[in-house]
């Protein structure tokens, strides 16, 4: 996104180089639908070079480390010098952080759906699974796409109902949070949906280890939850190259100013998306909103102007709730998800924090918007980078 935005704004004096070890670009929101045979593999994959503006120089390479004191990036076979660096290395799952998680049952009875491979393996498992106790689990916060485990639970309920085997499946939702979600209004609403669908919740569960032999997860308080099939969101961590560069915190996220997106340590380094340590959601919409503000700040930095502390933590997420419906939430650092209309106050047409068929269609249409607008740096009409308080039921 930044390459697309900046290629339109920077003059020919600037060379834009994009380094990425993966030539394949995944539409990650689609991974949720693969286990339930709602999307096929080809629906979530495109080739990266096809997505980039022609003026951007693409280098397919792993990054060994960044040397921020010297303004250099070490690749496998060469060194790149930079004037400005934008870190967009994202985050990924690290199941090995929990004892026993990546053990003999990994991708046999314990699955993730946060990777392409995990989602496909889980799909194959579900196709022939005869039922039992399905435990959906979150290891620790933060995770990217914090609503995805809830969506998975709702879609699983649907999936088994359609296959007329819902009574053969017990679904549990196990979370380190104190409720279905982190903020009170949405936590109540989403908790209610879980209850309505007969999904049992276990809260405040801080997993210590997985007992593969007895198929249990055990927390630090010695509480146990047994399972037949465990779908877990493992610890999410920033890329290892950030650790190798000495630039990250305990979870390999880069300390970043929450409003300007400049690195807290190096003035010519900026960070976007899941790679930051800012207290916004790790979500695609956040990266999209950040991109607009970061583009402005890169230009200001180049011109020696003061940066604009404009980013407000704006995030916007569809939550699939099953049965052809979804909810939509819109929030930022200061305002939790509440009811209302989006994007046009009063008119909508999308309802906030309420289930609707239109929201579900919105979620599906989003895939087209992602490939054809977001990645190309084209703004979505009526949706501003900072959150609007209009049209919301605030206290």
């Amino acid at each position: 996104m930044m390459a697309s935005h900046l290629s339109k704004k920077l003059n020919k004096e600037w060379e834009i180089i994009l380094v990425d070890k993966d030539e394949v670009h995944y539409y990650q929101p689609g991974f949720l639908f693969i286990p339930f045979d709602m999307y096929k593999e080809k629906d979530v994959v495109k080739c990266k070079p096809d997505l980039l503006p022609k003026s951007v120089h693409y280098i397919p390479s792993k990054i060994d480390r960044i040397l921020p004191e010297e303004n250099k990036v070490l690749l496998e076979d060469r060194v790149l010098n930079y004037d400005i660096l934008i870190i967009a290395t994202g985050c990924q799952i690290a199941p090995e952080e929990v004892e026993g998680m990546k053990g003999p049952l990994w991708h046999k009875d314990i699955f993730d759906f946060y990777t392409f491979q995990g989602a496909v393996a889980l799909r194959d498992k579900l196709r022939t699974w005869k039922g039992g106790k399905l435990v959906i689990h979150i290891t620790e916060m933060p995770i990217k796409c914090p609503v995805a485990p809830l969506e998975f639970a709702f879609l699983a309920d649907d999936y088994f109902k359609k296959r007329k085997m819902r009574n053969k499946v017990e679904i549990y939702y196990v979370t380190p949070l104190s409720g279905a979600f982190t903020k009170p209004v949405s936590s109540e609403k989403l908790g209610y949906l879980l209850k309505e669908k007969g999904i049992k919740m276990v809260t405040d569960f801080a997993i210590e280890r997985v007992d593969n032999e007895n198929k249990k997860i055990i927390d630090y308080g010695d509480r146990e939850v047994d399972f037949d099939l465990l779908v877990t969101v493992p610890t999410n961590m920033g890329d290892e190259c950030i650790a190798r560069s000495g630039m990250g915190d305990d979870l390999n996220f880069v300390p970043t100013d929450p409003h300007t997106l400049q690195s807290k340590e190096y003035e010519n380094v900026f960070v976007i998306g899941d790679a930051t340590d800012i207290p916004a959601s790790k979500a695609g919409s956040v990266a999209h909103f950040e991109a607009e503000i970061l583009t402005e700040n890169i230009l200001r930095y180049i011109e020696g102007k003061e940066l604009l502390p404009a980013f407000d933590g704006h995030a916007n997420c569809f939550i699939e709730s099953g049965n052809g419906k979804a909810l939509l939430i819109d929030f930022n650092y200061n305002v939790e998800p509440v009811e209302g209309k989006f994007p046009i106050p009063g008119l909508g047409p999308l309802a906030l924090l309420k289930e609707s068929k239109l929201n579900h269609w919105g979620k599906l249409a989003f895939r087209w918007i992602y490939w054809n607008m977001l990645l190309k740096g084209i703004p979505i009409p009526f949706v501003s980078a900072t959150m609007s308080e209009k049209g919301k039921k605030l206290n």
Partner: protein
Amino acid sequence: MEKVLAGQTVQVDQEGYLIDPNQWNEEIARAIAAEEGIELTPRHMAVVKWIRETALSGKPLSIRTVKKSGVVDIKEFYQLFPGGPLKLSTKIAGVSKPKSCL
């Protein structure tokens, strides 16, 4: 809202966390702990003081950061503050509940 703890009037939020950390002292800590069914031993107090110092210096608090600090191992943390050690220890320490981001 106002609440009386250990004979002193303090301001707390809806969940009982002190709004102004400066209103805290050890007697108030004991009163909050008692409400949660915990009798504070010197070991409890050592952990509570670490939690307070860390929170007031703006550093993040999570099970992970507690583990890394070495102030207490996580098993013991759960034994000292059963149920939700971060939630409980921060309340007793007179600081805000750790923010879980969305």
